């Protein structure tokens, strides 16, 4: 049970695709990889694409909140898209949708940020 991270820069948005299970064990890797990418690339916004994320717990919420703070400090925004129903419940319960915008797919996420081609 591991986690794969795929990243793609799309103009000023960094698309991060998480596949597998995001828990305390895998959150550390996500944190390190995303932190580095946000610093290195000139990313203003983050799109978290979660179509293939099959499990997430509060450690996942922690790492997402951490990246949210990081991107907000740079004046950017965070959008979450393609979310599975089980993970939607966790987001809703924890109040994450109060700060993070939800879109149905990557294309609508990009348009909502105004960086679509």
């Amino acid at each position: 049970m591991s986690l794969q991270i795929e990243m793609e820069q799309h103009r000023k948005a960094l698309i991060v695709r998480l596949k597998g299970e995001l828990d305390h064990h895998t959150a550390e890797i996500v944190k390190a990889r995303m932190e580095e990418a946000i610093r290195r690339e000139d990313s203003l916004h983050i799109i978290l694409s979660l179509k293939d994320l099959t499990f997430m717990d509060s450690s996942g919420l922690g790492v997402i909140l951490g990246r949210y703070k990081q991107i907000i400090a740079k004046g950017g925004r965070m959008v979450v898209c393609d979310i599975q129903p089980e993970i939607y419940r966790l987001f809703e319960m924890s109040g994450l949708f109060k700060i993070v915008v939800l879109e149905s797919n990557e294309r609508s996420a990009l348009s909502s940020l105004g960086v679509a081609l």
Partner: protein
Amino acid sequence: MSYNNFMKLQFASRSENEAFARITVAAFVSQLDPTLNELTDIKTVISEAVTNAIIHGYENEAEGLITISARIEDDTVHITIEDQGSGIQDIEQAIQPLFTSKPELERSGMGFTIMENFMDNMEITTRLGEGTIVRMSKRIESKKALYN
């Protein structure tokens, strides 16, 4: 007709075992034919309690012992997660949503809130320097009809 079954699992306090623990307990609970949501709830709370034991109970020392027991009684699963770690100083504070004793580790502080929400009951027994036991139970809806 009544149905009883139980299991016990012991493993080292390593983060690699978080997935192992939740998948094993989910496999055990599967005999109650839970819905996908119920199974996700169980996996999530196991993950939360085991993560707490590793990070807070054993302060990330990989030599600690974590014990999970699960008991099925008719349509209800009772789960205990136990560690012999440092214990919780202030339970009232620990269960507050968003409270974390380790903000530097990017903890969301939602662990106990998730356990309380996803299970029907949750109880914490803790002693400083001796360890923590979290007891939770959940009635599996799909089985209700059989036992009502």
